[in-house]
C-alpha cells in the first residue's frame, strides 16, 4: 500500500536537503576519497578533517547527504552525523582539547537516517542505523608526536627564535624614541614569527629587514619547512592505522514494518594499499512460497589500491581499484535458481570526479557460474555545494 499523500515524501526530502545544505561546511581539501563512501570510513571524518579550526563550522563537516543508486528504480537520501557533532552544536567548548579527549564515545558513534523512495519519488520506507568505531587508531585528532624527532626540532626552532628575537628587540627596537616606529617594528617581529611557522610560507621575509640579516645564518626557514614535511608525513602515517567498526541497520516499508536489516563489521588498515575486510549478516523480509524471510551472510577481504593520484597533490587519490575475494552464504530464503553459496572475485574501480564526488563501478565475477555482475554508485558531500557557492 502506498501513501496517498504524494507531497509527503517530497516534503521530507526538502527538509532533509535544506537542513544539510544550510549546515554545509568547507569541503575536505585533503580529498582522500577513501573516506567518502563507506560508513566505516566516514567515522574517520572528525576534527582532523576540519579546515581552519573554526568552531562555528565544525559541526557542519560531520553532516553528509548522499544520493545512492541514482540509476536504479529505488533511491535513498541519507542524513548522516556523529553524536559528537550534535553535542558540539549545543556546546562549542567541547572542541577544546581538555574536553575533546573525553568525547571518544560520542566521536566514534555515528547515526544514519535515510528516506527511501521509488523511481517516481514516492515514499517506500525509512532506514536507520548506528555505527561505532571499536578501534580508531587513524584518528588524527589523537595524534601524539612527543617521542618523535619532530618534537625536538620544534623546540630547537623555538629556542633559537626566542633568543634571537629577544636580543634584537631589546637592542634595536625597544630603545627607539619614536613610539609609532617602535610599535610598528614590534608588530613586524610578531608577524614574522607567525609567517615563519605558517604552512604556506615558512619564510623570514615578514621580519624587519635588519632582523632578517640576523636570522639568515640560522636557516630557521629551512628548519620550519622540514618540520612541516615531518608533520605532514606523520599525519599521513596516522591515516594508515587500523579502523574497526560495527554497524547495525534496519529498514522499514511504508507501513512501518521491518523490511530488512543487517549487522556488519569492517576492518581497514593501510593507505595506498589498504586492507579491507568485511563481514555482514543480513535479514530481508520476503514473500516467497516456502519462507517469509531471507537470511544471508557476506564475507570479503581485499586491498584498496591507489593507482592514480593528483599531480599537484600526491596525497589526493584520483583513481583506485579494489580487488577482493568474497564469500556469500544464504542460510534461509534463497531465490529460485540461486545457489546458497557463492564465491566471487570482485574488482571495484573508483574515479574521482570532484573533490567530493566519486563514481565507483564494481564488477563481480562468479567463479563457479562464470557470470559478471556490475553496480554503479554515486555519492557526494554537501561541502561541495558550499565550496562551489563560495567560488561564485
Amino acid at each position: 500500500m502506498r501513501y496517498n499523500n504524494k507531497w509527503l515524501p517530497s516534503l521530507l526530502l526538502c527538509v532533509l536537503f535544506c537542513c544539510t545544505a544550510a549546515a554545509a561546511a568547507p569541503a575536505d581539501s585533503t580529498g582522500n576519497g577513501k573516506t567518502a563512501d563507506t560508513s566505516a570510513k566516514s567515522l574517520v571524518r572528525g576534527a582532523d578533517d576540519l579546515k581552519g579550526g573554526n568552531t562555528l563550522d565544525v559541526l557542519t563537516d560531520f553532516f553528509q547527504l548522499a544520493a545512492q543508486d541514482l540509476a536504479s528504480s529505488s533511491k535513498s537520501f541519507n542524513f548522516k552525523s556523529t553524536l559528537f557533532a550534535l553535542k558540539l552544536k549545543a556546546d562549542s567548548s567541547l572542541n577544546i582539547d581538555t574536553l575533546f579527549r573525553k568525547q571518544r564515545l560520542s566521536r566514534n558513534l555515528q547515526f544514519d537516517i535515510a528516506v527511501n523512495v521509488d523511481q517516481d519519488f514516492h515514499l517506500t520506507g525509512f532506514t536507520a542505523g548506528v555505527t561505532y568505531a571499536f578501534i580508531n587508531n587513524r584518528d588524527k585528532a589523537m595524534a601524539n608526536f612527543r617521542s618523535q624527532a619532530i618534537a625536538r626540532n620544534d623546540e630547537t626552532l623555538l629556542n633559537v627564535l626566542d633568543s634571537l628575537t629577544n636580543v634584537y628587540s631589546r637592542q634595536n627596537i625597544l630603545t627607539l624614541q619614536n613610539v609609532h616606529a617602535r610599535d610598528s617594528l614590534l608588530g613586524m617581529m610578531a608577524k614574522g614569527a607567525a609567517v615563519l611557522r605558517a604552512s604556506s610560507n615558512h619564510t623570514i621575509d615578514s621580519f624587519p629587514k635588519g632582523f632578517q640579516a640576523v636570522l639568515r645564518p640560522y636557516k630557521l626557514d629551512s628548519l620550519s619547512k622540514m618540520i612541516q614535511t615531518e608533520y605532514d608525513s606523520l599525519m599521513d602515517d596516522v591515516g594508515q592505522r587500523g579502523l574497526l567498526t560495527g554497524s547495525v541497520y534496519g529498514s522499514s516499508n511504508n507501513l512501518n514494518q521491518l523490511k530488512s536489516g543487517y549487522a556488519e563489521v569492517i576492518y581497514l588498515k593501510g593507505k595506498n594499499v589498504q586492507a579491507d575486510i568485511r563481514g555482514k549478516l543480513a535479514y530481508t523480509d520476503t514473500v516467497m512460497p516456502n519462507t517469509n524471510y531471507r537470511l544471508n551472510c557476506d564475507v570479503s577481504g581485499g586491498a584498496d589500491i591507489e593507482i592514480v593520484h593528483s599531480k599537484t597533490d600526491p596525497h589526493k587519490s584520483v583513481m583506485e581499484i579494489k580487488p577482493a575475494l568474497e564469500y556469500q552464504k544464504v542460510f534461509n530464503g534463497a531465490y529460485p535458481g540461486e545457489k546458497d553459496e557463492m564465491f566471487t572475485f570482485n574488482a571495484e574501480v573508483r574515479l574521482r570526479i570532484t573533490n567530493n564526488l566519486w563514481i565507483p563501478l564494481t564488477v563481480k565475477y562468479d567463479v563457479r557460474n562464470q557470470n559478471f555482475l556490475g553496480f554503479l554508485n554515486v555519492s557526494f558531500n554537501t561541502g561541495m555545494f558550499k565550496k562551489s557557492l563560495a567560488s561564485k
Partner: protein
Amino acid sequence: MKSVTLTVNVYGGALPPVPIKVYLDGPGDNDHQKFSKDSSFSYTFSLAPGNYQLMVGGQNPAGGSTTVILAGDISSGPIPTSPQSQNTAQYAFIFYFTV
C-alpha cells in the same frame, strides 16, 4: 609586582601533537622564564615593572587551531593585540607588553 595571565586554548584535537612551549623574557637578567604544557592551560605571571617579550609556540592538531589570550596589569600593549589565533600546522605567537 603585577599579574599577567596567559591563557592558551587548543581546539580540534585531544591534545597538541607536541608540547606547547612558553618563553617569557623580561628586563632583567633573571627575568627569563621557560616552560611547556601538554594541553590547554591558564598561567599567571607575577612580574616586576618593565618591557616583556612573550613567545608561545607549538603545533596544532590536524585541522585544529590554537588561541592565545593575554590579560592583566598591562600598562602598554600587548603588541599585537590579544587574543591571537593560528590554525596552521605549526605556530609561534610573539607578544610585546609593558607592566
